[in-house]
């Protein structure tokens, strides 16, 4: 079936009008839609972040009810995780994987259309979840944080039902997208493109896709039980009826911990393409990086309860989760070593994608260090639910996921549009973005350790100065993304012609077939599969 679709439209260019997008089965168009959606939602999620930082600008309650503040925290996290990073990574996969492995399109093009179009529906539901609590009689705001723990999530108002359905839709969307990507990688490679000849980005997505297929249904099950507890009188998590709220935490983190690798791995795949390019050396230890990801995949599935050290688990399981969590830092560290060894004695140049890649290696290592601190049970009992944890995961997720996506955008924009982006503006964006990011989140380590809790609208005036610094930097950080938007629009509209191979270094080592295509590539590429020697 699927290939028929690709076949029919074979010889003509893109269809005209809105139908091109609504009914698209073309991997490049769907990739573009994913990326556009993610960039749009970045500004929505960013707006709630700005709101949070404005509230925290000074101690005391500025302009938010505590419940509404916590709703902003929930909303921000859910949007950034599910509506920005995951769709953007899926967009990159759509655009790049078929071109890299010499496939005419994704394996299941119609499913691809569905998995994208579920997203805007979910986004609307998610935004409604924040608006609904303002109507009379709808109960409290969604004040639980993105972790949706009961009993609070059972008590929360109607907005929670919207969140639950959002999670359902997003889950279906990402499961469908993952199935599609995994099938494409496994079955659609051009003759001669063996698994170990694939660009690292494909490997990264193979693991990401498999992880999502395993974990997303568990989250869906968990929130379904939550819905039942709320409306149908079951007691999965309700202690009064014999349930156990901690069970939800296990279900959530069984999903939640591997989820951080879902966010991380695509970007690791991206910088595994960028660093060799700008070091003009093949990737150091291709197979060891694949192995590292496989270990991460496996250990990541059995480490979840390090988020629950404080719930009163017995010593045995606590020790298990501590040891596994600390072990995980070994493959993570080795991955970073792969990158450093690739740069070692390379002929490095620092175009914008490379600037991002190098800064990611540096800043992400720092998240690894704070991660180890949090992995140690006695220490975590002190740090848990403080701003220190917030600092840890923003250092993990912004470099580890978001900046990797920016790097990818700069790296592949010339291929996608045929135009070179403005290198000077790109560099300005990089420095502005990274400096502001550090000024925002680095101080959170300090006031976190000093005892400022997370998810609380007010704080001790002792933390006022550093919070003000965080807030001011956060505004600068937020605004920097307008520059990114401008650069992207400018590149799409025109610029110096990029040529088929905008980066001469991209030809070293294990490379994909994307560089053999023109920039921008034809609407239908590799209709007849190329042969890889």
């Amino acid at each position: 079936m699927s290939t028929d679709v690709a076949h029919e439209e074979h010889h003509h260019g893109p269809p005209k009008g809105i139908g091109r997008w609504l009914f698209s089965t073309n991997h490049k168009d769907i990739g573009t839609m994913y990326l556009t959606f993610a960039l749009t939602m970045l500004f929505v999620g960013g707006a709630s972040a700005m709101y949070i930082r404005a509230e925290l600008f000074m101690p005391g309650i500025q302009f938010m009810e505590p419940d509404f503040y916590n709703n902003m925290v929930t909303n921000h996290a859910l949007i950034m995780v599910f509506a920005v990073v995951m769709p953007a990574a899926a967009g990159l996969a759509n655009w790049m994987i078929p071109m890299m492995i010499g496939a005419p399109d994704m394996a299941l093009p119609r499913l691809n259309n569905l998995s994208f179009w579920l997203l805007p529906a979910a986004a609307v539901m998610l935004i409604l979840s924040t608006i609904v609590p303002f109507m009379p009689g709808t109960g409290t705001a969604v004040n639980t944080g993105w972790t949706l723990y009961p009993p609070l999530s059972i008590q929360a108002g109607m907005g929670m039902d919207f969140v639950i359905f959002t999670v359902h839709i997003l889950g279906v969307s990402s499961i469908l997208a993952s199935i599609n990507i995994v099938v494409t990688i496994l079955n659609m490679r051009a003759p001669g493109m063996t698994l170990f000849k694939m660009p690292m980005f494909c490997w990264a997505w193979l693991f990401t896709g498999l992880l999502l297929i395993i974990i997303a249904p568990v989250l869906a099950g968990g929130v379904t039980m939550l819905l039942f507890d709320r409306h149908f009188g079951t007691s999965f998590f309700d202690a009064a009826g014999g349930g156990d709220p901690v069970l939800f935490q296990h279900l959530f983190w069984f999903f939640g911990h591997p989820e951080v690798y879902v966010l991380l791995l695509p970007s690791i795949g991206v910088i595994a393409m960028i660093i060799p390019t700008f070091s003009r050396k093949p990737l150091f230890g291709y197979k060891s990086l694949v192995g590292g990801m496989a270990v991460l995949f496996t250990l990541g599935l059995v480490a979840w309860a390090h988020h629950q050290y404080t719930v009163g688990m017995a010593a045995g399981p606590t020790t298990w989760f501590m040891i596994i969590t600390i072990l995980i830092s070994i493959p993570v560290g080795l991955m970073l070593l792969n990158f450093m060894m690739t740069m070692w004695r390379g002929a490095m140049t620092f175009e914008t994608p490379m600037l991002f890649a190098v800064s990611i290696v540096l800043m992400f290592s720092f998240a690894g260090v704070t991660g180890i601190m949090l992995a140690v049970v006695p220490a975590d009992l002190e740090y848990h639910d403080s701003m220190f944890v917030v600092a840890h995961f923003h250092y993990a997720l912004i470099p580890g996921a978001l900046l990797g996506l920016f790097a990818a955008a700069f790296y592949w924009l010339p291929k996608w549009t045929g135009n070179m982006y403005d290198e000077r503006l790109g560099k300005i964006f990089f420095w502005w973005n990274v400096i502001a990011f550090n000024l925002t989140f680095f101080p959170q380590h300090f006031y976190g350790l000093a005892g400022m809790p997370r998810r609380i609208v007010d704080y001790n005036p002792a933390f006022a100065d550093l919070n003000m610094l965080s807030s001011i930097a956060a505004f600068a950080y937020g605004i920097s993304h307008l520059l990114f938007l401008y650069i992207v629009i400018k590149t799409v509209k025109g610029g110096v012609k990029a040529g088929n191979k905008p980066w001469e270094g991209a030809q070293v080592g294990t490379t994909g077939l994307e560089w053999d295509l023109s920039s921008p590539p034809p609407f239908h590429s590799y209709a007849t599969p190329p042969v890889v020697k």
Partner: protein
Amino acid sequence: MSVPEKREKTGQNKNRKTTLILGLIVVGMFGFGFAMVPLYRLVCNATGIGISGSSGTGRIVDSSTTKVQKDRWVTIQFDALLNENLRWDFYPEVKKINVHPGQSYEVSYYAKNKTDHKIVAKAVPGITPWQAATYFHKTECFCFTQQTMDAGEGRDMPLKFVIDPALPEDIKILTLSYTFMDTNRESIRDTREVELPVSVKHEG
């Protein structure tokens, strides 16, 4: 069939097969989430690794044959908590007692329904430190069943227990805590509409 067509055909079959396998994993994992509900309880009960104190809910022991350790004292502290959905009075009659392991004791908690309607409530126990949970045996407890109280009704509720002599030597103080909650889920939203009086904190 030409060669590329044939290739396409086998490609499609392969895709269908892989999709099916991945789809089965999805269904299986969805089921796994629900299987966690009984599994979780089984694992926790079998190994006592669950939430601290959960295993102290109701094992009947025959205390007549166990040896009483006359020379050993353990302090038991009693704590009472109310879930925010329940507007009752609830407190232990004594806040702490010293006991010999192996000997049976009886204490009681007092509860009173301060509202103007009948309420069915349930007390959920917890024991600190968690290591002691498996050594705390209750022979009778108001937490074994749901408690129904009419408007304004109040009563003493008994609790009989024995500390297992095998309790590790280093545990000298043990805290037993009960949280009472309304079993009617709507109550949560009801009480949230009415501003709660500050006195929901436990007294006594």
